[in-house]
């Protein structure tokens, strides 16, 4: 059974952490993954950097640029991830843009994911129709979940379609925004989260974009199976001792 499905059966209030591969230093990828598991993260999203990340705000853009400038590639990432499952047992997803996947080759990409123990992918600029036609078969063959995003503007019919195509979780954007904005749960957000909850989707939901601390995390968990933290974490590991920064950051989410 896929680790993503398992975690949602075992736990509530899933805390998933995003970080950019090869940042702050090229060799930090596995170190961060291991430190996160140790400090209590439930799930990991490892970003493979792209030169033109249109869905991301300045912090994740800058981390991607630094990582690329230091020589990170998708090929190198898969080499690093050969050691992933030595000490990491929680679900791991890769997140990035479609062009590097295309150049790597979809088949090769899925195969490499399966070999290193990656459980799923989030590719924000991969359209649903393309996924259905050209990627789905390959993803399923390698037991990979593909996670789609929905926003407050996504129509109900489309949400149902996404729910039908997904077999991991649905990534609920708290607002239509690039990454790094703060979550403000006002009336409109609340009614949107409530509306999604009432749809009784077959997939669990995770709220992302704008979650930065215990307070926003708890708020998100009231409406979904958990939440995803990206920008705030990437910012927290910019400097200093990596393991200390990770455990210091994660402490904020403990009761």
């Amino acid at each position, binding site marked *: 059974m896929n680790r993503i499905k398992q975690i949602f059966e075992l736990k509530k209030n899933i805390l998933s952490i995003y970080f950019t591969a090869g940042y702050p230093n090229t060799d930090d990828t596995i170190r961060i993954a291991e430190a996160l598991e140790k400090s209590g993260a439930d799930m990991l999203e490892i970003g493979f950097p*792209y030169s033109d990340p249109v869905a991301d705000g300045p912090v994740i853009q800058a981390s991607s640029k630094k990582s690329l400038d230091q020589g990170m590639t998708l090929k190198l990432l898969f080499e690093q991830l050969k050691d992933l499952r030595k000490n990491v047992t929680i679900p791991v997803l890769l997140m990035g843009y*479609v062009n590097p996947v295309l*150049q790597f080759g979809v088949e090769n990409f899925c195969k490499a994911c399966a070999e290193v123990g990656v459980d799923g992918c989030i590719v924000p*600029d991969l359209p649903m129709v393309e996924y259905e036609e050209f990627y789905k078969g390959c993803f399923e063959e390698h037991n990979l979940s593909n996670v*789609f995003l929905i*926003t407050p503007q996504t*129509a109900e019919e489309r949400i149902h379609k996404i729910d039908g195509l997904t077999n991991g979780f649905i990534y609920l954007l708290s607002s*239509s925004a*690039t990454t790094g904005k703060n979550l403000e749960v006002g009336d409109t957000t609340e009614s949107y989260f409530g509306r999604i909850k009432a749809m009784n989707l077959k997939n669990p939901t995770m709220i992302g974009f704008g979650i930065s601390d215990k307070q926003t995390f708890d708020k998100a968990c009231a409406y979904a199976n958990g939440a995803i933290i990206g920008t705030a974490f990437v910012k927290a590991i910019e400097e200093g001792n990596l393991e200390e920064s990770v455990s210091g950051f994660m402490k904020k989410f403990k009761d």
Partner: protein
Amino acid sequence: MVLTSGLDKKDMKYKVNEKGYYGDFGGAYIPEMLYPNVEELRQNYLKIIDDADFQKEFHQLMKDYVGRPSPLYLANRLSERYGANIFLKREDLNHTGAHKINNTIGQILLAEKLGKKRIIAETGAGQHGVATATVCALRNLECVIYMGEVDIERQAPNVARMKMLGAKVVPASSGSKTLKDATNEAMRDWINNPVDTHYIIGSVVGPHPYPDMVAIFQSIISEETKKQLIAQTGNDQPDYVLACVGGGSNAMGMFYHFMDDENVKLIAVEAAGKGVSSGLSAATTYLGKEGVLHGSRSILMQTEDGQVVEPHSVSAGLDYPGIGPQHAHLFKTGRGKYVSITDEESLDAGLLLTQLEGIIPAIESAHALAYLEKMEFKGGENVVICLSGRGDKDLDTYIKYFNL
């Protein structure tokens, strides 16, 4: 401009299909945050464009505000030099000095029909930014223009024009700080302002339906050219049609009504920069591979890892690492011939036109002119070149290069 509903199947060989593709290229590779905006546009653009009121207003503005039809000028001294009849389609004479206004007029009317209150755009040379700021002033809509920091420096007069027109010019300071990055910033703005904002993309790039929509608005160039050729030569099919290509909007407008005339040779001129193998180039079809950039599958300059490579060209308008998907299709099918011209060759061609015909061309357009040097004519061929813009904005570059 064509009525899109008038197109029949035989016209569709090089045009977009119902899935948003031109052969292997096109599509809409966008994050979910942009889906509702792009989908709204996709569902409505043809309906709006085909509407009689829209057509009337568009053509009225083209005539009275832009100054169309733009002349098709038989350049006598240039013709003499090369031994062919060289016609210049004078888009440089349009209001705001380039072909860009054809598209911005079309899109601003469309944005109004969609009820949008705020307009954003990216710009490279500043021509599209000026054309967008102009129509926003004309229709009283808020206007935000994203422009690379590097381009802001090398195109100062256009920045001043945009500001005077009431637009806010936001510097794009990521990546190469040029057109590609300005486009990223504009897309980010659209993601963050999903309801009231329309993004006027300036070229035949971006997710479907943008490449098709921009091509339709720019197709007025070739529509007029055909009529003018009949009047001047008795034949609406020239031997060659040439245009420069960055993203490719003037070229697509220039090629549009000739695409199905298979005996008309289409030549698209890319910017070789300091030379195609110099590492400082924007010759996309020569250096690029298939991939996804700015929302569509096309040909782009990239590393083996799929990272977009920073292009170089002396002309800010051609300094783009991709080409529109329809161009990628014309290239792959062999319908269009894609060639490239260096910085120096283009500047020399710009000076030549100035001194032979008294027309200072934009350095972008000078790339197309420069290719004449590489063509061989038997004599008497009819050649149409799209003179996409005027060179006022490039005086600094010309002056420095020629020590004037």
